[in-house]
């Protein structure tokens, strides 16, 4: 059990909707370990503790207090190795455009979340995470 967990990259899912978190975890829980947070502060606390094993951050845009965009920007600065995804029902194009163009977000998942697209996107995110990890290992020239 522990061995599998070690090799399985973990996801951090941030959503204030409890049932949203529950079913997200159920939907992808078979493939990934899912850590849950219901707001930015909780998310930051989890990241401080577990950032080494978290590969992907998935956050809702609308959160109580600081919004998801804010969290993504902070994570991009402090934990750049984590691939960042955003979930939104909000077609607030200006905010999204800015997030995408500053590189704060890797992909945007639109609500309602469908299993197929979530799996595909998560797979791409994990691949991206591995690519980065390899690049980082290569950084000091051999």
């Amino acid at each position: 059990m522990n061995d599998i967990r070690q090799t399985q990259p973990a996801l951090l899912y941030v959503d204030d909707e409890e049932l949203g978190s529950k079913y997200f975890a159920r939907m992808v829980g078979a493939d990934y370990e899912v850590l849950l947070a219901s707001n930015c502060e909780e998310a930051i606390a989890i990241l401080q503790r577990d950032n080494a094993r978290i590969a992907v951050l998935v956050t809702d845009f609308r959160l109580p207090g600081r919004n998801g965009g804010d969290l993504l920007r902070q994570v991009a600065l402090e934990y750049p190795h984590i691939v960042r995804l955003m979930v939104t029902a909000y077609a607030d194009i200006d905010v999204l455009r800015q997030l995408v163009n500053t590189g704060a977000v890797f992909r945007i998942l639109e609500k309602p979340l469908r299993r197929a697209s979530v799996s595909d996107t998560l797979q791409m995110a994990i691949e991206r995470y591995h690519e980065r990890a390899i690049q980082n290992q290569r950084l000091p020239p051999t």
Partner: protein
Amino acid sequence: MSISQLHTGYETELADFRVTFSRGGAYTAIVLVLLGVGLDYARYPQLQTSFAVARLLVSLLIGGIVMMLGTALGRRLSPWLTLSWLLLPQAMISWMIWQTDGAQSPYYMGLNLAIFASGIALPFGLWQNLVFGVLSCFLYLLACLLPPHGVVPTGTMTVNVLLLLFAAAASAVYTFFNERVRFMLFRLKAEVSEKNAQLEVNNRKLLDIKGQLLQQEKMAAIGTLAAGLLHEVNNPVNFCLMAIEVASEEPAAKAEPALLECLVDAKQGMQRIQHIVSDLKTFAYRKPGAEAEVGTPFLFEKALDSAIRLVAYELRGVAVTRELPADTLVQGDEAAIIGVLINLLSNSVLAMRNAGTSGPAIQISVKWSEQRLHVTVRDNGPGIADENLARVFEPFFTTRDVGQGLGLGLSISYAVVERHGGLLFAESELGSWTSFSFDLSRAP
């Protein structure tokens, strides 16, 4: 209005006035000429018969001129015709003077009377009055000087001629001022009617602005509501759909077709809710500066889908047919155009429902023509009466009962289409059909 324009208008109006006055004056002249038999009876009883014949003849001639005034030609020549009939009694009086005592005859008073009357009662110009006065004098002189009057009492004649000339001058001056007053009155009238027209235009503009403000407020309220709804509804819809998907993958569900069917139906319902909510999205994210939105490209077909979905409840039982070209990319404010479509569709449905149309149907046909997409929404409802058809776009015009709407819908739709450089127009045949059409420009 410039002074020269005013003068033209004044002359036109005066033409009618002149004909009417001339006619009235002529009738008066006929009466007075005929009543003159009383004078003849008192002063020249021996000539009673021949004078009476002359009076009758002159009356008939004046009557003839009055008849000419009624024709188009007579209308144009009215000042000259007036002068002509005025000269007839003068000629008659002069003839009578010549026939009787010449300068000694008191009938010269009759000449004076006519000169005054023409100045006061007839819309004559200064020159016409002067000419009339001088001609009257000339006739009087002839009557005094022509044989058989051998010895002329120069003193009396001079006094009478001068009095005639004075009368002419006085009535000319009177005419001059009278004319000015008349013109001033006309100018005031013109100004008042111009101001009235301006007021009417302003009123209409204010009504339009009021309608637009109400519309903007309404749109803003819908926007706020839609944004809230979007968030509140979307989240539960989101996890319900996820839950249904997770449940569908459970082995128990896969093994049990009845359960799976329930899940599929539940999913379909959720998706429908999600569609409605995402249709509201167009309203929720409207930018305040609607002008900027007019240039945004969108697929008209999608807007139509949204509109039909949003009025789906009202459209129940109505056969909706659509005819669209493959490409419907236009530019404009999508939310506003959806609003126009909703307005047209719900008007149709309401009219058909109220009239109890059997087999209600709405036909939406969309065609490209000269780089513009022409949209027609046509129903087989009760139609619109001709006298109302022209007024349907007026703000606050409604044939519905009080409380059944402000009567703003179509006026706002009209303004929306106008803002898109198009035209919204209505056609109808009472008892058969109504159609509303508008056009949008192709996206660049």
